[in-house]
Structures are given as structure tokens and as C-alpha cells.
């Protein structure tokens, strides 16, 4: 794939790539941006090459997953050595993060809590299927696991999420309507 075509493909998939990077970085926007920059740099520097064996999107997503895992390991090592960089300190009070939190609806917050209660692999399988509209086969390729394993993660994750959201009454009637009725009661 030539450079111009590569750039065009990356630009087309940028929003999707950012969404997947966010999921791989525990929804941390600044870390996700950093990881995505590293992914583009890897592709530019030839450290990650597309060989055409898989779909471009699944290949790109697997590069993102590996890069995010590397970043997470480095972060863990830094914490182990008690070296907290200035970036980590600044990250806590990031205005971008606050804006995003305000924008999220109550249901979205519940969804996030429900996803966080699931194992990482199950979160990834659900995200790839529901958010990116990938098949379980494609999700398996991105996650680097067998189809059977991906299917198990997906099914267990879906059951867990369904149970959590039913218990939180997200799957009931619209929340606004119910709260208004509750307010009207003496």
C-alpha cells in the first residue's frame, strides 16, 4: 500500500480507531491520543507493516491493541519504580476529561460501570461487536485469540452486561419518565 493510500485509509478509520484506542486505554482520553500517535508513528516508521493477509481495519485495530498494552506495561513499570511523570499528575486535572464526563448521560455512566465490572477480554469483545459492528470472527482476529475463545468472551460478556443493566433498571422504561412519576408521588 503506498503512502497516500495508507494515509487516506487511516483518515477514514480515524474516529473508529480513536474509539477502539479509548477502550484499550481504560477510557483515558489523553493516553488514548498518545497511543494513537504512537500507532501512526509505527506505521510511518515501518515498524508495523500491513501485509494484506487480514482486513486493513482488523490489522490496524490489532496494532492499536498491542501498542496500548505496551503503554499500559510501561505505565505499570513507572508506577512500580515510584516515578510518576509530570504528565501523569497533569492528567488528573485534565479539562478535556471533565468535559467528556459532563457530556455523558446517566445511562452511559451506568454502561461504563457495567463494562468495568467485566473482565478485560469480555469488554473488548463486546466493544468490537457492538461499537464497531465487527463480526465475532473479526473480533477474534483483533484480539489475537481463537474464534471459540472470542465467542465465549462475547457471550459471557453479553450475559454479564445484560444482568448488570437489568439490575440497574437501564433496560426498563425511559429513566426520565420514571423519575418524573416518582417526583409526582407524595
Amino acid at each position, binding site marked *: 500500500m503506498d503512502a497516500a493510500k495508507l*494515509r487516506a485509509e*487511516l*483518515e477514514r478509520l*480515524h*474516529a473508529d480507531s*480513536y*474509539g477502539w484506542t*479509548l477502550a484499550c486505554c481504560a477510557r483515558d*482520553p489523553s493516553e488514548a*491520543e498518545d497511543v*494513537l*500517535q*504512537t500507532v*501512526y*508513528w509505527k*506505521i*510511518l*516508521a515501518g515498524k508495523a507493516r500491513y501485509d494484506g493477509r487480514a482486513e486493513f481495519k482488523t490489522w490496524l485495530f490489532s496494532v492499536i491493541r498491542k501498542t496500548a498494552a505496551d503503554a499500559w506495561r510501561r505505565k505499570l513499570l513507572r508506577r512500580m519504580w515510584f516515578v510518576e511523570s509530570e504528565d501523569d499528575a497533569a492528567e488528573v486535572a485534565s479539562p*478535556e476529561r471533565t*468535559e*467528556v464526563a459532563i*457530556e*455523558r*448521560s446517566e*445511562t*452511559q455512566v451506568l*454502561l461504563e460501570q457495567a463494562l468495568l465490572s467485566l473482565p478485560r477480554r469480555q469488554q473488548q469483545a*463486546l*466493544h468490537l461487536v*457492538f*461499537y464497531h459492528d465487527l463480526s465475532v470472527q473479526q473480533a477474534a482476529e483483533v484480539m489475537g485469540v481463537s474464534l471459540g475463545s472470542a465467542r465465549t468472551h462475547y457471550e459471557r460478556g*453479553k450475559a454479564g*452486561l*445484560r444482568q448488570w*443493566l*437489568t439490575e440497574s433498571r*437501564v*433496560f426498563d422504561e425511559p429513566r426520565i419518565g420514571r423519575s418524573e412519576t416518582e417526583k409526582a408521588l407524595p
Partner: protein
Amino acid sequence: MSPGSDEAKLKKLFLERKACDERNAPSFARTWQVAVSRSTEPPRTMRWLAPVALVAALAIIATAIGIMLHARMRESQPAQEASLALTQWQSPTAFLLTTTDSTLLTSVPSLDRSWMQDMSYLTERIE
């Protein structure tokens, strides 16, 4: 509630999330530009640090092993002294077991030159 309707609701929740993420995503141009500037940067001149760090790590390991061995040797020295003292111990009443003629009974008299001369004198006399 059927599983199919649950899936549709889950899908809807994820799509809402996607829409929110897309609004807050950094622009492609900015992300790409950072990646391009990173790829054109000269390689970091900190490569010499790797062998230095390796040598330092090896030195630290060797020192640690040396300290451990030294400490172990120092620990075993008093034990050796104690075992030596134990083997050389003598009862305070050990002298009671020795008699005045014990040296005579435990030793063999030596046949020196004078004895031999006496013996030759005697044999001459007998003859």
C-alpha cells in the same frame, strides 16, 4: 424480555457512546502531524545508556553476592570456634584418672647404647 431486544438495546447504548466519542476525538490532522514529526526526529542519543545500565546492573549483582557470601562466612566462624572448644574440652576431674606409674605402664623403655653394653658384658661372663 427477549435476547434479541436486549441486543438491540445494547447496540443502541454502544452507538450513543460512539457518537459521544466521535465528538470528542482529536482531529486526524493533529494526530498525524505529531506522528510525522516523531518519525522525522533524529534518533535519541541515549543509546549508550543501555550498555552502561547493563554494566551497572552486573556490578550491583556481583556486590550483592559478595556481601551475602561475606555475611555467611562471618556467621559460620563462631560456630567453628564453638565446635573446636567442645572437642577439646576436658573434665575438671580428669587428673584423678592418671596415676604416678601410668607413664611406666603406657610407655615402652628404650634400648639405648648403655643397655646393649651391659648385655654384651653379661654374655661374655656367661661364656
